[in-house]
């Protein structure tokens, strides 16, 4: 099978191609084209085909990861969104859970209020009410109010409309009717219904997730559609697969209906690639640091296992997004992060990024403000003539000018100190995140290796590792394409679920059997469509259960592939008690157990990704590794000065060469 992984970052688009039969590998990296990233994807993919000597139609699998969705949220530049909601509940997304993130603070900002996803003026309540537990209609939908609201939102020129009614997951008829009315009044506008985005109770999470879907939806759909049609045009026959926040992949249709599941898509591919690289270097416990142009993603994987977040703890940036999500932290700190002085006179770096266009000042694309990359260039840490392996030339004088024009007048320091300061601020943000996710969760960084990748990760890894006492740093070969590689280092996985709300003491065996069978049929069909032969398909049955009265569920496996029998239920009950015992050190055999959701995970096994190991290193550089010496600024023992620094090429320097 010939497989291609493509990761679109905020700044660069990376490619990793492998032919499993011959073992041939092709790597590529092109600048991201932000106005339409599919342009860069296609250009780079065709280059890969060229290098590999295969036609576009010869690619069997096309896997794609993107930080586009995530960056929209972090940079607060999503679509202007409107909301139609139940009368009396205009401010649910603004009030949130009324709990402060910080206990001990008067001056904190509430992120969901400071950057509210939908302005109050565009949150329009209409009369309607569905009630629990059967979903009866208490107040019929005021259709004239809906029509008026749609017209108002059209006049306001919103780009998308979130429809969020109470209890819509019990009875969706009002939300569905609103969609019909919107189609009559304003055909083509982007619409999300809360019961379709996440059919679960707890209105604040459902509403916020739906608004997120609308906030990023138009931009993400435009992009994915462009890409799919460009692929078709260029002759790529393989179906487009997108990495999801759950660590599994989605097809084009799946991704378009719920772009919110594409959050963290790129970062998770990076984490998977980082775990893979760490394991190949002999480290099971890894902390991954993936620094791109716009953001840094930090993952902690004890024993090489990705950790999942609890469904009510899943956040993207500062917002609660109720989608299955791998535990990973994203901060707005990357090579393109802009260094500036804020209103309060504070020297800051990021989260605003110059991205790829115009990019850092030194890119010579019209960027004027200094960025982290400009700081690294100013300090001599980047070679202006060997950027992107020599495919791009940087102009240090533009970096210097950016510092001189935009920072030095406001900061009482010289250019070198300002550049060093910018790097320190950037690294402090990264260290803080690593500490939050390792030390503060009880993991000792001294037991871990730091796997650093992405365009800018390795530049900062050693300093960070030293300060946090992480004993080993792993820099994968071609660190810039680790996320693209990660896309191919995981199995295909789909998740199908259904809400049951059934007592274990009184199970409807027929319904459970039929529902499980239906979910399995969907999963199998999906995987076959992806070209999986039946021997590579693995199905897993799960149930989310709780003791009746509890508010949170535990996920347990369900035995037997065929019909659900009394014996299956008995062992499910045992499995739940045991899971409760393991998780909470206690169980309650007298208490009633409730099945809340059933779930089928369908996996399509992928061949192991192999990479030829490098040889063992020596204390002296091998011939040809040393390519140059130049002056690089470092701060050592508090003193800042230039050091005569040997420069070695990564391609021929072996491990432990120093």
């Amino acid at each position, binding site marked *: 099978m010939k497989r291609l992984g493509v990761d679109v970052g905020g700044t660069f688009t990376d490619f990793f191609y492998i032919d499993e039969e011959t073992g041939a590998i092709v790597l590529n990296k092109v600048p991201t084209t932000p106005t339409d990233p599919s342009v860069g994807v296609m250009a780079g993919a065709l280059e890969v085909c060229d290098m590999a000597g295969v036609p576009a139609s010869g690619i069997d699998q096309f896997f794609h990861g993107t930080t586009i969705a995530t960056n929209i949220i972090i940079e607060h530049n999503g679509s202007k969104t409107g909301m139609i909601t139940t009368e009396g509940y*205009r*401010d649910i997304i603004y009030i949130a859970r009324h709990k402060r993130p910080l*206990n001990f603070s008067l001056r904190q900002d509430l992120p969901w*209020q400071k950057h509210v996803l939908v302005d109050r003026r565009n949150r329009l309540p209409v009369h309607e009410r569905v009630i629990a537990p059967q979903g009866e209609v208490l107040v019929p939908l005021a259709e004239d109010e809906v029509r008026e609201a749609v017209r108002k939102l059209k006049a306001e020129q919103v780009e998308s409309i979130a429809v969020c009614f109470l209890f819509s997951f019990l009875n969706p008829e009002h939300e569905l009717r609103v969609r019909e009315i919107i189609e009559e009044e304003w055909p083509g506008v982007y619409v999300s219904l809360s019961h379709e985005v996440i059919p679960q109770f707890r209105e604040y999470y459902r509403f916020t997730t739906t608004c997120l879907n609308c906030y990023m939806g138009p931009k993400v759909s435009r992009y994915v559609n462009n890409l799919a049609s460009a692929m078709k045009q260029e002759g790529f026959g393989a179906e487009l697969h997108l990495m999801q926040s759950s660590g599994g992949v989605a097809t084009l249709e799946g991704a378009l209906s719920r772009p919110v599941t594409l959050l963290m898509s790129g970062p998770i591919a990076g984490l998977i690639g980082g775990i893979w690289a760490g394991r190949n270097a002999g480290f099971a416990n890894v902390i991954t640091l993936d620094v791109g142009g716009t953001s840094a993603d930090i993952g902690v994987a004890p024993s090489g296992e990705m950790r999942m977040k609890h469904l009510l703890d899943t956040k993207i940036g500062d917002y609660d997004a109720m989608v299955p999500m791998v535990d990973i932290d994203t901060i707005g700190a990357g090579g393109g992060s802009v260094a500036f002085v804020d209103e309060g006179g504070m020297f800051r770096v990021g989260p605003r990024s110059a991205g790829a266009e115009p990019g850092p000042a030194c890119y010579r694309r019209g960027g004027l403000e200094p960025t982290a990359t400009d700081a690294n260039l100013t300090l001599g840490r980047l070679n202006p003539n060997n950027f992107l392996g020599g495919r791009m030339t940087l102009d240090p004088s533009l970096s210097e000018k950016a510092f001189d024009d935009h920072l030095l007048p406001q900061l009482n320091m010289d250019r070198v100190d300002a550049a060093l300061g910018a790097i320190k601020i950037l690294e402090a943000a990264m260290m803080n995140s690593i500490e939050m996710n390792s030390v503060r969760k009880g993991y000792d960084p001294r037991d871990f290796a730091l796997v650093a990748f992405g365009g800018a990760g390795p530049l900062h890894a050693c300093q960070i590792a030293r300060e946090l006492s992480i004993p080993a740093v792993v820099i994968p070969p071609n660190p810039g394409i680790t996320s693209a590689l990660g896309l191919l280092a995981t199995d295909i996985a789909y998740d199908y679920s259904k809400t049951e709300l059934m007592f274990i003491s009184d199970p409807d065996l027929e319904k459970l059997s039929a529902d499980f069978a239906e979910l399995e049929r969907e999963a199998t069909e999906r995987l076959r469509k992806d070209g999986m032969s039946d021997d590579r398909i693995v199905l897993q049955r799960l149930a989310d259960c709780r003791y009746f009265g509890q508010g949170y569920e535990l996920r347990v496996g369900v035995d037997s592939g065929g019909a659900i029998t009394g014996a299956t239920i008995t062992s499910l009950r045992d499995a739940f008690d045991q899971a409760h015992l393991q998780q909470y050190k206690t169980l309650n055999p007298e208490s009633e157990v409730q099945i809340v959701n059933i779930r089928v995970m369908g996996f399509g096994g992928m061949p192991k990704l192999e990479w030829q190991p490098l040889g063992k290193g020596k204390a002296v550089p091998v011939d040809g590794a040393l390519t140059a010496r130049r002056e690089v600024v470092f701060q050592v023992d508090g003193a800042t000065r230039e050091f005569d620094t040997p420069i070695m090429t990564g391609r021929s320097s072996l491990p432990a060469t120093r």
Partner: protein
Amino acid sequence: MYRRVEVDPVTLNVLGGAFNAIASDMAQVLYRMAYSSIIRESEDIGAGIYDTDARELCESASTPMHVGSIPGYLRGIMKVLGDDIDDGDVILHNHPYFGGSHSPDVCVAIPIFYEGKLIAFAANTAHWIDTGGAYPGLNVDVVDVWAEAKLLKAIKIDEKGVRNKQVERFLFDNVRTPTNDRGDMEAQIASCRVGRERFLGLIERYGLDVVMSAADHWMDYAERMLRAEIEKVPDGTYHSEGWLDDDGKNRDVHLKVSVDVTIEGSDITIDLSNSSPQVATSYNVPFDGSTLVAAHYIVRTIFLDEATTGKYVPQNEGIFRPITVIAPEGNIFNPRFPASCTSRFMQCQRMADCVILALADVIPERVTAGNSAHAYAIVYSGYVPERQQYWVNLEVSEGAYGAMLGKDGTDAVDNLIANTRNNPIEDLDWHYPMRNLRYELRPDPPAPGKWRGGLSIIRENQFLGEGFVSIESDRHYEKPVGLFGGQPGMTGALTLNPGTEREEKWYSKITGARVAPGDILRIESPCGGGYGDALERDPEAVLKDFLDELFDAEHAQQYYGVVIDEDMLVVDTSATSRLRSER
């Protein structure tokens, strides 16, 4: 018990993080396992690890009034039990005159033994939905401490690992919500076991001396950090005072909260001596478990604000050291046994608000204008004959912050010592015989100021069956004050059946009122005060609030001197400067 040793900086950092993680894990177990929505949704709990002197090593980031109170409970437990503490014991405690915060907050403590010696406690507190007082769930107008709850004075529910079935039966036969209380107690026990296991894991890995020395270090560090900030304020005594509504029985007899804050070097003293004497209802504040806790909370919050302090400073015993609190016995902040003292939250909030306001002139950049400094703690309940139990639902409504230098007051959020979460509407409607009809921002203008006060919420709950309501709150009498020319905020209001001929205005404290099917209770929470002259407010900020329909153009003109062109929806700048210059 242990030898203090040098600990290298990396280990210190790791252990500091591990302490934090243990407390956080303990809290997670409690939320996830619990049955009552006040625990699993509102997260009205505290959890942490404490040494044998009841010094706090770490606490969960849950509700401030809970977490800071556990040392008081443990001192009470040790006072009662002395050496009679064994491995495998599980101790229940809620006695307000033995360190308890108030009787509904039940503490579960598990001793941690290492090599046969008691070295620490894993403990948590959680709000039990009913503890068998005179009225379901919440008791304001009651005669004494025995009327407010079943008192648990260091009761061993497990002795040396064996459950005491008689005690268990007695306890759960004497509360109205045995299923919930039992499930919540088991969750608390499980949470403590997780704490014990993880703490012992640390000791096995790093050694007792290193772990405890690291804890000492973190306490010293927190103390140093707090002292450094207190020291920056000029020495002196700063005063502020306010008036509470009444005690819930003697209506409209206002009660004084008087605060004198004395700064002397790096020490701070909060003197409450001139506050009201204790009252005849449960509207009194247990000193160890609540007065101290609220004072510690507000001092740390003002001086080491987590949002503006660059460094991570853990909340532990070290924070308490620079702070002295004075309230003589017989004061509302230090009642004499056996006065009832379960309704203690509002006085603590107002005390915290007064501490902030007392310091306004010396540290105007760190304070807020008057806060809602309150909460509506409302218990809805009813009897379910077929289960021979009550359903009881406790709802804590948010408030809003006063405005600050450079920043509007925060809207619709738990204020000061409160930091719970709201219960989802879909949970309330699904699980109780009630229906919510409205929950959104209060439809009144926020308090004008150069920075405006925070806006709070309006909420309407309807009863679908017969039931009781009890309410603990305040702020129906005195508005949150404005600062430096800002306007005052708004008082709160409770209205039964608003807009009907059966409309009733309710006092802020209600004890066991009967309600009928169809009755609607409207709750309007108080709003924070403004900061600075409203005529100096950025006109674009005024326009934004206008567009978001917080007030109309007339209001903008009258209070802010901002003229809005209602056709173009922009600020009429020349008319605005003209109007502002005339005033």
